């Protein structure tokens, strides 16, 4: 094992089928087996032969216009979807902040939801108990933590979700446009937490359109364009080039 590599993306290809009119049931599958609809199904080639190596402790931004395959790449790193070709190797515990609050139950209290949500991230009861005070403190929801989550405002909801995800204590963090959590104060807090994690040597991969925060936070940027890596390197260089083309 190459121990200083956190993520290795090796010749990865990804297609998506776009169904014109998707047959979901057996009846539809049999009735509409004709080629007519099939020919209208399109194969979208989202990622084309991507090679990318991210070292441990690096913080990398994935940038690019909508539909360039950034989120798809991130989803494949978390193993939610799998590549058609090629291989992705991940060394270390990985947490994704792709969808915050996945698995929250509106009828249960904030505290109970911390347990549910953390268990989805693969924490054991002991590990959750060790962190719970830290999570509650970070979310600043002390007064509401035993109220059902359905009574929360959307900002409170996101704060709780972010606090759980950020405290999972993973080696690798994948983040998709999360810097829009809560108010100014909480955003800054999240940002400081991320910086702290970076200092601790965590590997961080961010997908974002907010180039300023990227410049401030990341060392390296990878520019995806039309399913290929257009540029990869120092964050300032890549962004200035990106702004020239897309700005």
């Amino acid at each position, binding site marked *: 094992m190459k121990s200083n590599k956190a993520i290795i993306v090796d010749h990865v290809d990804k297609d998506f089928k776009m169904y014109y009119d998707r047959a979901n*049931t*057996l009846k539809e599958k049999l009735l509409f087996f004709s080629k007519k609809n099939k020919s209208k199904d399109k194969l979208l080639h989202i990622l084309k032969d991507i090679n990318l190596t991210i070292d441990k402790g690096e913080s990398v931004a994935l940038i690019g216009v909508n539909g360039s395959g950034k989120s798809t790449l991130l989803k494949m790193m978390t193993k939610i979807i799998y590549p058609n070709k090629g291989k992705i190797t991940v060394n270390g515990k990985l947490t994704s902040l792709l969808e915050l609050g996945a698995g929250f139950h509106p009828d249960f209290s904030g505290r109970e939801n911390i347990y549910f949500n953390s268990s989805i991230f*693969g924490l054991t009861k002991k590990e959750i108990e060790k962190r719970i005070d830290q999570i509650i403190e970070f979310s600043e929801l002390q007064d509401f933590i035993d109220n059902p989550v359905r009574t929360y405002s959307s900002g409170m909801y996101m704060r709780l979700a972010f606090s759980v995800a950020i405290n999972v204590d993973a080696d690798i963090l994948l983040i998709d446009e999360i810097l829009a959590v809560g108010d100014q104060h909480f955003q800054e807090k999240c940002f400081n937490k991320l910086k702290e994690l970076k200092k601790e040597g965590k590997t961080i991969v961010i997908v974002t359109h907010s180039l300023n925060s990227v410049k401030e936070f990341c060392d390296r940027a990878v520019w995806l364009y039309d399913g290929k890596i257009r540029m990869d390197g120092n964050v300032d260089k890549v962004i200035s080039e990106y702004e020239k083309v897309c700005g």
Partner: protein
Amino acid sequence: MNIFKELYQYRELLKTNVKKEIRGKYKGSWLGVLWTFLNPLLQLLVYSFVFPYILRVEVEHYTIFMMVALVPWTFFTTAIQIGASSIIGEAGIIKKVYFPREIIPISVVISALVNFLITCIIMFLFILISGVGFTPYVLLFPVIVLIQTIFTLGFTFILSAVTVYVQDIAHFVSIVIMLMFYATPIVYNGELLPAKFQWIITLNPMAQVINAYRDILFYHKTPDYNGIAILALISLAILFVGYEIFKKLKRNFVEEL
């Protein structure tokens, strides 16, 4: 094996899922979890009236005769039926977070097993009160339960994964279960079946299991040890094949859902 390590790491998720499965289903109903046991018991009440008194099936202690078959049957069918739509039911979370997908069908089977074991306490009380009683053969009971759980898990793996691709399977399963109910010696004694139909029982793992339960709990006779050994091997094979199918299909769950 990697999967065992992963499941161990995610054991808290498995535990909360099982709890949700057991308690969540009847949330908001007055009798709550009691429904889990009332369902088979009421069914039993109806059958033990219909078959001896209307259809004139003549078996001594008919209620017990049926109960030792119906209770394990309910375990099998709940697991299969809930399991078939379990992955689709969790689509929301599967699309968002990575966790070992195996957790979903496994927690369905475990919660069905827990319900089954609790119903067994009631069943054992019935056996005691009715005067049928116990013999040392009852010690084999856990072995049979284990075998049944293994192949039930295998079938649940297959059905939960295939249903993602062809959603009709869930409806198809309900019909097959209804037919299987009569193709399995639950309300009748399998030996009464004419020789030319015996293959139905030979090929049906549930029939084998139910015969074994009945031998040790009702007839108090030595069960067919060879048959049980073969069944154990077949069950392991079903689990293995089921898991392999699941492993193949799980890669594309998110895109199909």
